């Protein structure tokens, strides 16, 4: 078997907020095609870690390398153009645009790059972008809502649409911050199915999640974060059996 290709390498990252050591000595390697879950109790530093990866926060020390390129110091749009997309904990969407428009905008970012003065052709005449967006909505089961205002969608649908906005860019790495938080059991299962479907297309994913059902049905690898440190790392079975993890997070043997 070939040596797995590391897509994202978080090397020796520290992050301090004043006196708080939010991340200490984080070393993570995300391998191509894998779904890597990061779990941990509230305040463990999961979101901080994700924000360091995406360029929202600069680490106090250490580097993040994506596909041979150092991400630290890059702007969010540059990081996206390298092929990293992100789903937020609270959906970041274009609330006063239609669902279709919400999905077309990221498709334009993928096609036209960070800035292009595209003044002469009308958007409606660009069938390719529109068709692509409609196919994407079909994929997430939202085609029938394409003309609705995104702001009027249910919480679950907003998240699903945001996922579609990321997927249409066919990113090499998808970061998901609690993709099923606030969803009903039914919506959660739909989302799991959707994420499994993407996995079969070989997209690398990092998921932060509280819901163990989601984590254990999706993850190939799990890293457990507690008080800013990685206390365990491994396959779901290894992590499940690790006594340190049970103590810090799972709160006793797994049911």
């Amino acid at each position, binding site marked *: 078997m070939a040596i797995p290709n590391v897509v994202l390498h978080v090397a020796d990252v520290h992050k301090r907020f004043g006196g708080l050591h939010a991340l200490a000595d984080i070393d993570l390697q995300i391998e191509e095609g894998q779904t890597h879950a990061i779990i941990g109790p509230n305040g463990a530093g999961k979101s901080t870690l994700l924000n360091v990866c*995406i360029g929202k926060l600069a680490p106090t020390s250490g580097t993040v390398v994506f596909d041979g390129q150092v991400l630290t110091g890059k*702007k*969010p*749009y540059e990081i*996206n*153009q390298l092929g990293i*997309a*992100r789903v*937020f904990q609270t959906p*970041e*969407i*274009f*609330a*006063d*645009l*239609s669902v279709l*428009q919400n999905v*077309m*905008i*990221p498709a*334009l*970012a*993928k096609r*036209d*790059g*960070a*800035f*292009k*003065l*595209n*003044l*002469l*052709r*009308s*958007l*409606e*005449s*660009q*069938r390719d972008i529109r068709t692509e967006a409609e196919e994407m909505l079909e994929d997430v089961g939202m085609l029938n809502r394409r*003309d*609705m*205002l995104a702001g009027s969608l249910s919480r679950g649908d907003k998240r699903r649409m945001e996922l579609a*906005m990321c997927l249409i*860019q066919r990113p090499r790495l998808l970061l998901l911050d609690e993709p099923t938080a606030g969803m009903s059991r039914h919506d959660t299962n739909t989302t799991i199915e959707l994420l499994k479907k993407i996995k079969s297309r070989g997209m690398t994913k990092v998921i932060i999640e509280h819901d163990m059902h989601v984590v254990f049905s999706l993850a190939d690898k799990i890293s457990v974060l507690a008080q800013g440190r990685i206390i365990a790392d491994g396959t779901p079975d290894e992590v499940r059996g690790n006594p340190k993890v049970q103590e810090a997070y799972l709160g006793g043997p797994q049911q």
Partner: protein
Amino acid sequence: MNALLTSRRDAITLAIFALVVLTMPVWLQPFGAAYPGLMQKFAIYAIFAIGFNILFGLTGYLSFGHAAFLGVGSYTAVWSFKLLTMDALPAIAFAIILSGLLAVVIGYLSLRRSGIYFSILTLAFAQMCYNLAYSVLTPITNGETSLQLNLQDPRIIDSALAPRPAGLPSASLFGHTFSGLQGFYFCAVMLLIAFFIAQKIFASPFGMMLRGIKSNQTRMNYTGFNTRPYALTAFVISGMYAGLAGALLAVTDPLAGAERMQWTASGEVVLMTILGGVGTLTGPVLGAWIIKYFENIFSAFNEQIVSRFFDFLPAGMHDVVVAVASKFVGEGWNLTLGLVFVLIVVFLPGGIMEGVRRITHMFDKSRRAPPTPARLSTQPAE
């Protein structure tokens, strides 16, 4: 709706708009507004408002300093008249270029901030331009006396082509001097071109990016867009629109004063846009027309007219009503404007266009209302 339908709908809108604008001298007759001076203002301020709306309506960035570009456009045009030729086209071209350059500088600096800080920065720059025009730049702007044509102007191109006429010339187009309604028709054609370009921008991917910035700038960044050049381009385009409007003011009356750059003028275009409907194509035009019309009508009223109007009231009441009402006309017509503005913002935050939409919706309940991205958001771009 498919591509053809949208572009056809735009074409129909443009055709109707052209008809309305070009027949102004006819349908404005009963309103007592069909004289060239006022109709020219209708066309010019509509251009100003359309351009302002490309920035404010699409990106959500509220500039409080657009009068600076209007003023620079006027000064440039008058200088073009003085130095080169009375022809309107070079004057307009220079005005657009210069106001565009100024917009690059002001926009580049102001767009480093957003929300209220952006508004304050633009206001500060505009006031700086205004004060410069009054003080150190007097050799260029002629300060308080305003920049005017005079008999000693070189007018290099005109003098080379034909003997100098006696007296002060007025603006012309290819050697033909504007007279009567021609000045208005020239402005009207400029308005139609400006409207057409705005339509194109609204329908383009670029326009969609600007809406994205207004809606959620964070998402735009994480989606891979470098939002600042987009916002700057919108700022420069709207500055150029203002420059065009300023040049046309000079074409119709070759005179440029610093008061054109004052903050009240910047505020006026904000009122026009909000009154008509932020983010809609025709709303700002309606807003501009209504404000310019009422400015003209109400400011011409005096106490006698008001007194005659309320003649039917009994004597005691008559005096009180006249005393109160006369405060709202003449010099005090701004009071009326303020009142109307408050009513619109409170009851129709989407402006007149939202009113129109509500009415058509009432008559057409069976059809679903299309998504309306053009709401006045209380929060400017983040």
